[in-house]
């Protein structure tokens, strides 16, 4: 029977070294709420597991000099929820991360794992896309930055190069009048996987949208940044016509499949419905703060 080696290095360099050396047989372990499930069900049989939770940079939440946030890739949902200011600045990102699983799962699951697992239905990803997060990755050839929407390559696949580890998410500073929101459609009330997920980030001035980003999940092989929806919102007062246009842009962006979780027609419709509802929540939060 195959042996399994478990490594828990204290530094990123060691982790990258060990990960790169072990090649395709290795897997990074953050919270393990995807990885261990996949191993148990026999989908994955890694030879080496590199646990990244002992590396300080990967479990830290920092406020950056310009007022943004840097979140370590392995920060658990619970740790993020307990941070004093993060949820006030990025309520949508936080609610998306906190939607993952249950209390027990929240104690472990990370946004990094959610992104690197490559599921088009990962809940935190559309919110991160809407937030305009930039990720830092480190590999045998050093560090680089990527837009979060460029990380997923398809179901279960990422654009990380062999040996690369996701280090952190950097979220930009927020101008006044900004907020965000995330909604997902699931048939049940919890413990379910998104049939459609929608993240919206807005900046508003005097009732008018001055900046917007929209992320959509579970409607295509990867999470989508829907620029046409954002364009429809920018400059508007979120009137019905603008919302309808943004909703159609979301529906138009969908390239879903018919599967056990939902039909093509259903996902296309729901993408538009969620855009409207999510934008309304984000706008309410954005204006409340002023």
């Amino acid at each position: 029977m195959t042996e399994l080696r478990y490594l828990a290095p204290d530094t990123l360099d060691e982790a990258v070294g060990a990960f790169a050396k072990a090649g395709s047989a290795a897997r990074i372990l953050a919270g393990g709420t995807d990885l261990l499930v996949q191993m148990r069900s026999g989908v994955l049989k890694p030879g080496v597991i590199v646990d990244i939770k002992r590396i300080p940079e990967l479990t830290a939440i920092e406020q950056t000099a310009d007022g943004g946030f840097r979140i370590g890739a392995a920060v658990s949902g619970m740790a993020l929820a307990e941070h004093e200011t993060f949820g006030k600045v990025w309520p949508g990102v936080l609610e998306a991360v906190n939607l993952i699983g249950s209390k027990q799962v929240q104690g472990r699951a990370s946004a990094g794992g959610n992104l690197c697992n490559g599921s088009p239905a990962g809940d935190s990803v559309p919110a991160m896309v809407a937030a305009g997060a930039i990720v830092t990755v480190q590999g045998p050839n050093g560090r680089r930055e990527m837009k979060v929407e460029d990380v997923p390559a398809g179901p279960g696949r990422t654009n990380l190069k062999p040996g690369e580890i996701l280090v952190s998410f950097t979220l930009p500073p927020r101008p006044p009048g900004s907020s965000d929101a995330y909604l997902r459609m699931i048939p049940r009330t919890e413990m379910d996987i998104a049939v459609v997920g929608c993240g919206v980030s807005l900046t508003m001035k005097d009732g008018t949208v001055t900046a917007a980003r929209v992320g959509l999940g579970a409607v295509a092989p990867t999470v989508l940044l829907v620029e046409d929806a954002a364009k429809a919102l920018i400059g508007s007062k979120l009137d019905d016509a603008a919302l309808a246009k943004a909703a159609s842009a979301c529906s138009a962006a969908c390239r879903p499949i018919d599967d056990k979780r939902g039909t093509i027609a259903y996902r296309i419709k729901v993408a538009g419905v969620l855009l409207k509802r999510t934008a309304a929540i984000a706008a309410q939060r954005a204006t409340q703060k002023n």
Partner: protein
Amino acid sequence: MNLVTNNKWIGQRTIRPDGMDKVTGRAQFAADTTMPGMIWGKVLRSPHPHARIRSIDTSKAEKLPGVKAVVTSKDIVDFPIEKGAVMLGIQDMRWMCRNVMARDKALFPGHPVAAVAATTEAIAEEACKLIEVDYEVLPWSIEIDDALKPDAPILHEFNKFDGKPSNIVGRLEHKKGDIEQGFKQADIVIERTFTTRPVHQGYIEPHACLISVAPDGKTTIWSSSQGQFMVRAMTAYLTGIPQSDIRAIPAEIGGGFGGKTIVYLEPLATLLAKKSGRPVKMVMTREEVMRATGPTSGSKSTVKVGATKDGRIVAAHGTFYLQAGAFPGSPIRGAAGCSFTPYDIPNLLSEGYDVCSNRSKVAAYRAPGAPIGAYAVECVLDEVAEALKMDPLDFRLKNAAREGTKAAHGPVFPRIGYVETVEAAKSSPHYAAPLGDGNGKLRGRGTASGFWFNAGGESSAQVNITEDGNVVVTTGHPDIGGSRAGIANICAELLGIDYRRVSVIIGDTQTVGFSNLTGGSRVLFASSMVVTQSTEKIIQTLRERAAKIWEIDPEAVKWENGAAHPASPNAGQFEPLTLEELAEKAPAMGGPIGAGVQLNTQGADGGFGTHVCDVEVDVDLGIARVIRYTAVQDVGRAIHPGYVEGQLQGGVAQGIGWALNEEYIYTKEGKVDNPGFLDYRMPVCSDLPMIDCIMVEIPNPKHPQGVKGVGEVPLVPVMAAVANAIYDALGKRFYALPMSPPKVVEMLEAPTRQAAE
């Protein structure tokens, strides 16, 4: 029948005896048992929905280091089809021997074809991959319509229907009056066709067992089931080991709902243990449970109801096609027999068709078949009431079965409580409450009724007084619904002692007399009968002992408050003798005190329920949620009201899942595509409101405590109640389950509805 009303323990919410163990993790479920030298069994399963097995080569697997035994169908006792049925309860061993291990054909993906025991689970799994099976893949069908097509692949070539090979493997009908004449009298006739998907019982504990076969053949089985005697008998049949050599020990059970009334693993593990000489443990994965154990049937039902303008149902016709899965035996009896039973209908024809197709063999699921039939009937009744502009509950009252009504399936009803359930629903705070504003969501209310036969049958009990004057009751039924707590209440009541002094345990097959399995809502009904009689014998003994000590006539001694007293001042002046004192004196006074009774219990009365359901529909997302629910049921006598309510709430929760989201989804290759709890969506706690219960108590006159079965009725009306509520909210009717979000949206966007008649 004197019903005692000032009971001390009957009717109390006493602390459940299994509660502490379950919440602290001490309870021993089947998978918690281990033995020295134990090895692991795994099953190789067919990947094909339908395939002839040309040959199986196990030689490579047998050579893998660590493998201790391999079995195939050659090792299982064969029950040849042409020799006729060999029944054990409702199961025919001809099908059971082929279900636990495919013989000539594999009939569904997941059908066992071989089993391996090895020193580790991983080696056993590896060995399964080394078994070479030569399959001739055959065409297949899963859905009822496909299985009934003229050119459908036939699962069992020997079976004929209307003289031709067919997948219809059984038919039954219940008939009363003349429906042709009846429909002629009707002012309004509504006929509709409904479909439901297969749904799984969804017990959280997967099937598991540990089995040891000693060199002398003595076999011990630890397993989770709804009947240790059923496990023993089926294992004996399928392995050839006599029942006297098999000790089946029931583990604490983590849910069954009917699904653990048959065996899957025990015969295989027994044969592996016998071959290897080592104890063998087998534990199914959730995926195996979903692919290879019995969900209930998918169905297609057509129901036609005719009524007069004044609201009398004059004729009804129901045709229920139920998927049996790989082998005959779908619950058509429940569908055809229960669905119209709440009503006094002069002209009735109710037909059931048992249809085989290439999916796992059905197993019982809570009132098997009845919820499927009631869904169709109760939805049509809702339409008829609406067409007549009658309140749906008034319409039901007008047509309600009562004492003296002859049910189409045979009995003339004794005093029954159906009318009372409808009246209680009508006068409930729920039915009177306004629906309220949905804040953009649409709200609706629906009602429905249901019936289940309930059952009696064989039960055994032994009641023993311990040396310190307490009580141990041993019964023979796995407790899946609170029977231990109920028995403790009854025994304490009869003996006049604190219920905490009565310890109720479930015996194994070699220590308590035969007891039929836990099913049919029979357990508290039947076991309280034998426990009552045993306890009455003990009280008689205690009176005789006191009489002997006091040197008076036993008839002059009465038993009260846990002690013997002189029956009257005439009998003499004596200090009472308590149970403790009499237990202490037992050795000198004739020996240990105890009594056992074994009966084939009779007199189980059917149960009726009427439900009220409010839903709220988010029309843009198609999500329907139940926001308020009241289950009314004639429970006979609630021996332990907390447990009775638990049964009602549990049944409703399962029905809401069945109505809204649960379904087996199949791939194009005929395999279950959602074999896990992520995509097989049972409701979670937050999906449900608190379910209100109204217990109507019309005692069963043929039972010492008035008990009626309560565990199955509460699932019967639910899907119809939810469907009728969704209709009330949307003004559109669903004729198919589940009413899941994509289907609700599709329905709302569809321009047409099913044509009215």
